[in-house]
């Protein structure tokens, strides 16, 4: 009895067809419209692009300090020439980039940062530096626009009343080192109102090169790479050691390829030349640890 209550399949199908907001015939007419084809094509392209973008590769992404962008880019070219393997970079202030990884899960496979604070921010997310890894040592300089009056010391700089650009201490270690040096020299209070903060150390260099600002405090290696600024004075003390080291990110997909790249940096004599001619002092370090 119950079985007879059910309508035959053809009736159900017909009801379903009637209930459709658009008929099959209308749909085929619609698909012949060029505008509809255009929109569908756009969406297909989007779909294809999003599938293509997810294909896995072995290329590690290294987040690195802005001040080593030139030497690392050059080293990556040597790496590719000698081993056939590639690396990609995201350059910026070490603190900005470390926060992107630690707070928001940015997809870094390795980091090449300067100073202690990025390490503190990253904490357990990165592996300790293996023994025998290369470390790049840098120092600070006061630079000036080519027409700027000469200043010999940080006290002279503070007394000059000119605008001085440093990297923002909240964003880039270069700014923290500069602040430490000014504090150690006892002139931070005097100079504070004349300071302009830039996003990273390369932006400091750009501001002085263009003459938008008279003086700036940058790394020695930044001044070496520029013809259009003059070196006012070298600052040798009053700040923490400026050392760049590479670390791999523990749970990253291409962590192992990042380690391979750092090993290449530590061993290759060609890369060593690149670093030295840019003005870095080279040391070898490692962190004993688990």
């Amino acid at each position, binding site marked *: 009895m119950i079985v007879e209550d059910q309508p035959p399949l053809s009736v159900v199908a017909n009801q379903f067809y009637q209930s459709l907001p658009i008929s099959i015939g*209308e749909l085929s007419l619609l698909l012949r419209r060029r505008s509809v084809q255009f929109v569908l094509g*756009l969406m297909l392209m989007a779909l294809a692009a999003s599938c293509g973008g997810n294909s896995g590769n072995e290329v590690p992404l290294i987040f690195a300090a802005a001040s080593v962008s030139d030497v690392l880019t050059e080293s990556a070219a040597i790496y590719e020439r000698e081993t056939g393997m590639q690396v*990609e970079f*995201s350059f910026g202030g070490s603190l900005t980039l470390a926060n*992107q990884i630690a707070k928001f*899960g940015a997809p870094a496979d390795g980091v090449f940062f300067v100073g202690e604070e990025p390490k503190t921010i990253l904490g357990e997310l990165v592996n300790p530096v293996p023994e025998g890894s290369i470390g790049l040592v840098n120092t600070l300089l006061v630079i000036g626009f080519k027409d700027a009056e000469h200043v010999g010391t940080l006290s002279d700089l503070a007394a000059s009343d000119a605008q001085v650009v440093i990297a923002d201490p909240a964003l880039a270690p270069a700014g923290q080192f500069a602040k430490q040096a000014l504090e150690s020299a006892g002139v931070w209070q005097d100079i504070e109102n004349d300071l302009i903060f*830039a996003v990273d150390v390369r932006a400091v*260099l750009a501001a002085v090169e*263009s003459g938008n600002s008279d003086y700036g405090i940058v790394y020695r290696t930044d001044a070496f790479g520029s013809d259009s600024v003059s070196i006012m004075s070298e600052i040798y003390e009053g700040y923490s050691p400026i050392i760049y080291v590479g670390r791999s990110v523990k749970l990253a997909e291409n962590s192992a390829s990042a380690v391979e790249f750092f090993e290449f940096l530590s061993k290759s004599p060609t890369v060593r030349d690149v670093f030295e001619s840019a003005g870095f002092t080279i040391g070898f370090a490692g962190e004993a640890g688990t």
Partner: protein
Amino acid sequence: MNSDISIVALSLQIALVATAVTLPVGMLVAWLLVRKQFRGKFVLDVFVSLPLALPPVVVGYALLWLVGTNGWIGRLSESVFGSTLAFTWIAAVLAAAIVSLPLVVRSFAAALAGVDPRLEVAARGLGAGSIRTFLTITLPLAYRGVIAGVLLGFVRALSEFGATIIVAGNIPGRTQTLPSAIFTRISAGDTDDAWRLALVSVVLGVIALAVHNWLLKRTANGISSSNGGSR
């Protein structure tokens, strides 16, 4: 030069996908706002239009929290794909889509509002469903405004910077779009490169606006000639 091409290609890819996302979403929202009365209409309107009134950085920051390791989208994508969407090109697509959505919705809404509702009622009375009515009556009549909205959204997506750099970063070859590449060149003092890429932006903008005008003119002619033919 090679990198210039890849920067432009990535920018176009991000803007195109963002446009493909905003087109259906914007159409649905505009249709709801223009043709339907419902509770929470005001909330929907404000929510969709808010990016227009906010600094893009705030949009980027909100999005970053959503797709980052702590947000629910981030946790979802982490469990499905094993990584968050933050600092990927998909994040750049989301940023561009959200920032351009208000413009798209506004253009679509203006276009839909210009269609006589009696024509839709007539179509429904003759037995067409709501989707069929929309696709065969409303959309063809609102054509010009829709095209204008799509192009406007595309141009806005292409020039998006503030939200993008926060949520997608500035990674060459992965998330570096034309505006963020220009930003990098300016910060680093590479003035020649910055000017060249700025010029590329101008050229792209002019092309997009030219296509916009050409499409409008063409559809205007198309509609009048087809009307003339049928009578």
